């Protein structure tokens, strides 16, 4: 099955093309069959390939053809190694179940076929991204997911806001993409190739290639590339300062938010850094920068999430925050921890988003939690599932989030980065608080909506609840493959770490610093993490639970109005960007338009045209219609010709 690796993206692409070209004319059942069937087939092929891969445990590479431009040749090839295998499983598995869920969620939409076409296209691009064996294929996928993100955010194109949000996402991403490109150029210039298999072994064997001083801006080559790639990741994975598009991306349909803006696309940046780990290991300054940004983003987003009223916004900022965790881990060198958290996050975040989708579906489109409440009675399954998701994300022991988050905090402590550890811990507390807040406000207490909405409340159909349960199983079980040493009581059960270990290439000469912590310290850290999670739940329960509903929020508003406003308005970041970046750029564009394009360029062209026009106006006086005049001109011409010939 491994040699059918190429079939996986081809299947999803076929689904996208069929639905895209013919979907409008096909009956809904056929659209569904195509839209879900092809990703399903892709999942089966992927599972088969993974099964085979697990048997060989060797990296598998397959080249299909070569792109040549001038002296540069880039192969179109796929690589299935441990890292991409993990990503492949996550993308195809979670992706498939979200497709199934969408059948129910989007069943009333007129653009049903369009949705599935775009979603399949997204899967194709994402698969390219993770399966590519060189940065160019990754970039093609990178851009492709950006495109699909734009298309799907702006899915409800007849409204004002979604297209704007889509545009914003695409443009902010583009800034990152530019940096990504520059990094790739640097790689081509130095190595003449973009293949991982070409570049990484060279660097690992000879770190001097990239650590020589001052390639650009005072950074060695490794630092430069690391920085460029990270800026790309900032855009795609919504880190400070390029995260602003993700909350607005909630304008898209909820399953889109689940798949793209939680489970897969936004994790592409983490994947990229994990893939490039050799270079990051040789650029300690930039790696530290990555970790700091990650941590800052984590806590920043968490504080905003507490004050949000739209359930999807809460989840959006939560995603930004969790992504921050992943980058923190990557910056600390704990690449397998970052990917581990990526995987668990995919499950429980998708679960939470889809659960919120169920709620929104039941509420007939309402997303404001202030109008919800008491939905646990009407939506029992959804409530339980959402509860599981909250437990997972809060890092309650036993569920996936606990294991992955603990790995990250463990890594911070092991590096003695206590500031980062503290930030991580506080964020964990905040995470628990805002997640349980959202649960209580939505499902507990009394219903605060209108009568109409109350009548409309109904549990979602099985086509939506079954995927939820599958993902819930993942949210619980996915963590168990990464049990830390501490808890394994001797048995070497830290499978995940071992699985991904070979991905991390050790550059020659770099001292391997093994930070061993005493068993006692490890226990302390574990308990602290647990305390953060449980404590957060407790706080949320005491503030929001038991029918207290919105009372706490109102108190907060009254007691500290300025703080509340600041948080609710997301620190006015969008407004700041608008004032200091967007408006000046718009003014500059306006100047270029009116001043230069219209005046100078159009002016030049128009002048040419009007010259002709004026010349014509003047010239027409020579057409007197009088034949004798013409004879005269004729003759004069002959004279001139004659004189010229003679002379």
């Amino acid at each position, binding site marked *: 099955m491994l040699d059918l690796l190429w079939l996986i993206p081809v299947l999803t692409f076929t689904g996208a093309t069929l639905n895209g070209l013919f979907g409008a004319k096909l009956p809904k059942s056929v659209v569904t069959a195509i839209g879900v069937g092809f990703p399903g087939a892709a999942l089966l092929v992927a599972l088969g390939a993974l099964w085979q891969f697990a048997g060989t445990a060797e990296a598998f590479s397959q080249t299909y053809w070569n792109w040549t431009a001038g002296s540069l040749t880039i192969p179109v090839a796929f690589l299935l190694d441990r890292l991409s295998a993990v990503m492949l499983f996550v993308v195809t598995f979670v992706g498939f179940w979200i497709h199934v869920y969408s059948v129910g969620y989007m069943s009333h939409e007129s653009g049903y076929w369009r949705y599935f076409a775009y979603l399949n296209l997204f899967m194709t691009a994402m698969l390219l991204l993770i399966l590519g064996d060189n940065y160019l294929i990754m970039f093609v996928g990178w851009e492709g997911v950006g495109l699909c993100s734009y298309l799907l955010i702006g899915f409800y194109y007849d409204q004002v806001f979604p297209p704007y949000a889509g545009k914003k996402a695409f443009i902010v991403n583009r800034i990152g993409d530019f940096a990504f490109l520059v990094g790739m150029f640097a790689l081509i210039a130095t190595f003449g190739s973009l293949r991982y298999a070409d570049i990484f072994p060279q660097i690992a064997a000879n770190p001097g290639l990239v650590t020589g001083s001052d390639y650009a801006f005072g950074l060695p080559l490794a630092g430069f590339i690391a920085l460029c790639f990270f800026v790309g990741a900032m855009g795609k994975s919504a880190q400070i300062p390029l995260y602003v598009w993700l909350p607005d991306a909630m304008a898209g349909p909820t399953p889109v938010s689940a798949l793209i803006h939680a489970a897969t696309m936004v994790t592409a940046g983490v994947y990229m850094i994990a893939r490039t780990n050799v270079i990051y290991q040789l650029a300690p300054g930039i790696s530290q920068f990555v970790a700091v940004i990650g941590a800052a983003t984590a806590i920043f987003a968490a504080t905003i999430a507490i004050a949000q009223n739209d359930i999807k916004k809460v989840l959006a900022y939560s995603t930004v925050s969790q992504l921050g965790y992943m980058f923190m881990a990557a910056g600390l060198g704990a690449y397998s921890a970052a990917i581990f958290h990526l995987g668990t996050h995919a499950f429980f975040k998708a679960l939470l988003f889809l659960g919120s989708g169920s709620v929104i579906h039941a509420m007939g489109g309402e997303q404001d939690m202030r109008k919800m409440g008491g939905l646990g009675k009407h939506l029992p399954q959804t409530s339980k599932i959402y509860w599981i998701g909250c437990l997972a994300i809060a890092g309650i022991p036993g569920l996936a989030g606990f294991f992955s988050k603990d790995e990250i905090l463990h890594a911070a402590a092991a590096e003695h980065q206590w500031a980062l550890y503290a930030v991580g811990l506080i964020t964990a507390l905040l995470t628990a608080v805002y997640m349980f807040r959202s649960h209580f406000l939505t499902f507990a207490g009394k219903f605060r909506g209108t009568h109409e909405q109350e009548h409309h409340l109904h549990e979602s159909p099985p086509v939506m609840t079954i995927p939820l349960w599958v993902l819930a199983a993942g949210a619980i079980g996915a963590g168990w493959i990464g049990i830390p040493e501490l808890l394994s009581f001797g048995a070497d059960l830290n499978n995940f770490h071992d699985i991904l270990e070979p991905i991390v290439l050790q550059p020659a000469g770099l001292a391997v610093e093994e930070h061993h912590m005493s068993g006692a310290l490890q226990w302390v850290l574990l308990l602290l993490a647990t305390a953060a999670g449980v404590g957060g739940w407790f706080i949320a329960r005491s503030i929001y639970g038991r029918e207290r509903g919105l009372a706490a929020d109102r108190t907060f508003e009254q007691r500290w109005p300025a703080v509340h406003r600041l948080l609710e308005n997301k620190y006015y970041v969008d407004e700041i960007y608008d004032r200091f970046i967007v408006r000046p750029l718009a003014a500059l564009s306006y100047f270029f338009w009116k001043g230069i394009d219209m005046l100078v360029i159009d002016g030049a062209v128009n002048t040419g045209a009007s010259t002709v026009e004026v010349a014509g106006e003047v010239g027409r006086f020579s*057409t007197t*219609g*009088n034949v004798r005049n013409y004879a005269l001109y004729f003759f004069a011409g002959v004279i001139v010709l004659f004189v010229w010939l003679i002379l």
Partner: protein
Amino acid sequence: MTVPVSWYLMLAAALFAIGTIGALTRRNGISIFLSIEVMLNAANLTLIAYSRQLDSHTGQVVVFFVLAVAAAEAAVGLALFIAVFRQRHTIDLNRINLLRW
């Protein structure tokens, strides 16, 4: 005494000048045509003179062709005049000014 060839050339020059003046000055279409014929004759004379000068038949052959062309031109030109006359009922060139701006 033989007449120098240059005298023939001067004569041809004179005829040509006269013909040109006529062609540019007259108002009557037919008269313009006649003046053009005079010009053609002057050219023919020049050619024959040079043929004599260079002792070659080429000049005469060319005059032969010029004659044919002049005939053709006269025929077509007069046919056009007739056609125009049918429309305009005049061949006064001052009145035939359809192409006037």
